[in-house]
């Protein structure tokens, strides 16, 4: 919706073009276009034999704001939150024409829905926990993601994990959300403010899950709360998490940790409930381990491996 509303700043750079920064003098060989949004265009590029993503735009101000966020995230979290920032510079084409660009880690991945379609619904629980884990880290360092949406998430391989691109909406806690998309915005749905607080992201997280199953999205009605609940109820794969997702919609969670606790509990109680049915007569511990090899183990291994970073 926003892209349609805003003046498009098309920057078309031919593959093979070499961009050299005005200030730091690094060179980047443009390979291909990765995507385009409201603010800029993102290219795959090569520098010193390595691949990277380069975002370029005429809107120097918006770029600077994004770079500031990436710098702040770099300080608090290493490279888990958002792409790692590599360089910031200007491309002076002629005396009077200049673009701003920044170079970041290239995240090679696929969209969440396509990954889930290929690899199965059990990944939903894994990704929910993973996103909650990342959000918790982010929130603890004083930031709120803001523009959390399907478009801004990529699943990278080995091990499969969700990464965020586009930190354009990332806002300091307690301030007004910088950038949002209506479908994901609790203010649009009349269910809360646009102040940056953990519950803002948790609402958007539920909408991410809903968009996986309603790719055409859906629109507001006179009773938004009811609409959203109905949509949640309508997805079989989300049924186990229903109660928690609804709490998040209503802003009942003060932190990601609270929601993570509920989701973890749901996942482990599902394991327990299933187990007696199948291994009624077995005292063997092996089936239990195999069972654990399922969702819970996946989920927990993500949880623990993320602690290592």
């Amino acid at each position, binding site marked *: *919706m*926003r892209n*349609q*509303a*805003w*003046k498009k700043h098309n920057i078309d750079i031919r593959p093979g073009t070499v961009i050299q920064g005005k*200030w730091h003098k690094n060179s980047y060989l443009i390979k291909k276009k990765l995507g385009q949004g409201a603010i800029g265009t993102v290219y795959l590029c090569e520098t010193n034999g390595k691949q990277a993503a380069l975002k370029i735009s005429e809107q*120097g*101000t918006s770029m*600077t*704001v994004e*770079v*500031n966020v990436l*710098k702040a995230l770099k300080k608090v979290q290493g490279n888990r939150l958002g792409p790692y920032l590599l360089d*910031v*510079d*200007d491309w002076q084409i002629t005396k009077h024409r*200049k673009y*701003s660009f920044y170079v970041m880690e290239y995240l090679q991945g696929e969209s969440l829905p396509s990954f889930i379609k290929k690899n199965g619904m059990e990944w939903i629980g894994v990704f929910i926990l993973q996103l909650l884990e990342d959000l918790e880290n982010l929130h603890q360092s004083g930031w709120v993601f803001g523009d959390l949406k399907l478009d801004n998430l990529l699943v990278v391989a080995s091990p499969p994990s969700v990464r965020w691109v586009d930190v354009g909406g990332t806002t300091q806690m*307690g*301030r*007004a*959300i910088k950038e949002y998309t*209506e479908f994901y915005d609790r*203010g*649009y749905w009349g269910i809360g*403010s*646009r*102040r*940056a607080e953990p519950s803002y992201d948790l609402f958007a997280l539920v909408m991410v899950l809903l968009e996986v199953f309603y790719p055409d999205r859906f629109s507001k009605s006179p009773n938004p709360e009811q609409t959203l609940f109905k949509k949640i109820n309508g997805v079989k794969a989300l049924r186990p998490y229903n109660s928690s997702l609804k709490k998040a919609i209503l802003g009942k969670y003060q932190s990601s940790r609270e929601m993570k606790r509920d989701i973890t509990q749901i996942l482990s109680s599902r394991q327990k409930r299933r187990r007696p049915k199948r291994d009624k007569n077995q005292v063997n511990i092996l089936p239990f381990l195999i069972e654990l090899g399922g969702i819970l183990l996946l989920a927990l291994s993500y949880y623990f491996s993320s602690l290592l970073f």
Partner: protein
Amino acid sequence: MKKGTLKQILLVTDGCSNKGEDPVATAALAHQQGIAVNVIGILDDDQTEDPEGLQEVEDVALSGGGVSQIVYQESLAQTVQMVTKQAMTQTLQGFVNNELKQILGPKQTLEDLDPEKRGEVMEVVEDMGETCDLEVLVLVDTSASMYDKIETVKEALIDLSLSLNARIGRNRFSIFSFPGRRKDVELVFDWSPRLDEISSVFPKLTSGGITPTGPAIREAMYQFGKKGLLRSLRDEKSGMEEA
């Protein structure tokens, strides 16, 4: 840097002016008095993206030191808040650029700084945008052609107040419609920190095709002036009023 108050006129229209002074000139005058003029042009659903009649939209905002955007109704809410925020940033950046020129020489602007310094300056601009006080006078075109758009305009304005009230700084809004019944503009909603009670207050739309945009902007300027013209004149260049 002192905390201050930003002033904006937000003009919402679907056509061209056809009565009274040239709105482009009046907007320039407003700008000189430290008031930014933003313009939103609403398209009919069957209109193409670049109708000639709406060229004025861009011209008025340009001379008014504000931001303009032409949109279809469905994107109105999202656009109104973005235009308002962009204009705030633009004004604050202009203010910062003036300071930079005084410190670093006439040719220096934010864009000429190296990326690191630019980042630091933008952080200051962002802080100011978050904490400054803001006054928005909304001027809504209520000529006959707006008939099927007023409901969307109301919603967009309520949404605007939701966005701005998430900021740390304070806000005040007022709404005027034009043309008024007897005058060029008519008060719809007096200065208030919130816009959520406006649902019932829009007057009946005037019939006929009179759109006195120029006089409306002049009247809006005067409304701002009523509350402290002297102060804003004293500080006209920066667009900031000292708190």
